[in-house]
């Protein structure tokens, strides 16, 4: 089993990273120095004005440590491609073949079904705890589940995306209800991004970006090309396969985390900067709280139907990546999406 390693997040401006032997030396703006062995790190997330020496980058590329660089506005600007370390050209040819529009449907269906089932699970949980009597919700939950039947019968990707859209809007309809604190400030008017126009959307977008980083790592660690996706089609600069792999986990990991942080009062309405144009940014302090929550969430275990064990998220992701690779090699019939139980 792959060992679960830590992610190093560097958010403090004017800090620097250098190599010394096999360890990374981090120097913060206040002069504080920390030495971290790279042995226990498997990815590096850098944000804003951080100096990183070329030796650090070379070391990371060589040892398969994923480096993502985010702008101050939380957009991923670049990542270090470690394809030399982990790529397998035969597997990639198989991936290329399988992601062609006419072949992509089976996996895309599985992904969408996984997503729908996990969204269904979240709404069921909410209903059980807070809204047992809500007729409208009960009806929508069954509608949502009903979409699965259509998905199964979908004839092409466009049709499939249509059903995905329907379920997503059914699911997001109840997002505001699930927020139980500062309801007036934490209110989303639909999903919007680039820039996010309300606090909830800002949190969701940020969370999806962080998850995106992890999904790229997942895909690359099993030797696949993150840019060739099934459900998401090719577009320059877009890591479509990473986006595909995210679908099963959005509601489970990020949506749940956002709601929890708001409901527990760990993130409050004051944690945001709102510009004159209405776009919303998360303040640095809240971003740290968010990342702490995210890392906690990653340590949670979920039952995995395939291995029959409870796995922590990084392990579980790795298993999903291996299952996809196995499907592409022709060892299993289809790609089984992860469904929470």
């Amino acid at each position, binding site marked *: 089993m792959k060992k679960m390693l830590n992610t190093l997040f*560097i958010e*403090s401006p004017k800090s620097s990273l250098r190599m010394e032997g096999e360890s990374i030396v981090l120097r913060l703006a206040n002069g504080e120095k*920390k030495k971290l062995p790279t042995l226990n790190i498997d990815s590096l997330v850098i944000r804003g004005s951080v100096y990183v020496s070329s030796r650090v980058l070379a070391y990371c590329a060589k040892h398969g440590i994923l480096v993502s660089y985010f702008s101050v506005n939380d957009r991923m600007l670049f990542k270090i491609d470690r394809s030399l370390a982990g790529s397998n050209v035969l597997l990639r040819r198989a991936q290329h073949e399988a992601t062609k529009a006419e072949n992509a449907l089976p996996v895309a269906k599985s992904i969408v079904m996984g997503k729908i089932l996990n969204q269904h699970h979240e709404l069921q949980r909410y209903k059980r705890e807070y809204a047992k009597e809500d007729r409208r919700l009960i009806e929508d939950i069954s509608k949502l589940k009903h979409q699965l039947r259509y998905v199964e019968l979908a004839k092409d990707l466009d049709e499939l995306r249509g059903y995905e859209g329907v379920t997503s809007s059914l699911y997001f309809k109840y997002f505001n209800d699930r927020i139980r604190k500062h309801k007036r400030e934490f209110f989303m008017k639909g999903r919007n991004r680039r820039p996010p126009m309300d606090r909830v959307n800002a949190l969701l977008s940020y969370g999806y970006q962080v998850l995106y980083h992890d999904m790229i790592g997942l895909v690359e660690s099993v030797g696949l090309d993150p840019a060739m996706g099934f459900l998401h089609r090719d577009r320059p600069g877009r890591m479509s396969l990473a986006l595909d792999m995210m679908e099963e986990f959005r509601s489970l990991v990020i949506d749940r985390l956002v709601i929890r942080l708001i409901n527990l009062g760990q993130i409050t309405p004051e944690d945001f900067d709102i510009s004159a144009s209405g776009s919303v940014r998360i303040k640095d302090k809240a971003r740290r709280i968010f990342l702490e929550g995210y890392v906690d969430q990653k340590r949670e275990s979920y039952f995995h139907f395939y291995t029959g064990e409870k796995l922590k998220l990084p392990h579980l992701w790795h298993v999903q990546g291996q299952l996809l690779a196995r499907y592409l090699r022709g060892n299993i019939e289809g790609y089984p999406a992860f469904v929470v139980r």
Partner: protein
Amino acid sequence: MKVLVCYDVARDDNGARRLRKVARICEDYGIRVQYSVFECLVDPAQLLMLKRSLEQAINMKVDSLRYYHLGKNWKNKVEHVGAKVAIDMENDLLLF
């Protein structure tokens, strides 16, 4: 698994040099918790490599090394009091 590495390097002619070398090797594998004490989170293969490079660096006649194998559930075997709490590479969030 967690291994605690402690060392004593004699202060002879080459002592300072060996001392630096030993420390540098340890830094690559773990976190310094006290002056000549390191906590290393390693797998069996990595431990082997660590031991090999350390044992090549010291002078067996005058220096000594001690390894304490704390295993997987090392958490309830370690207690810290006072200043300079070390980072736990396995569980702490590495956010700076």
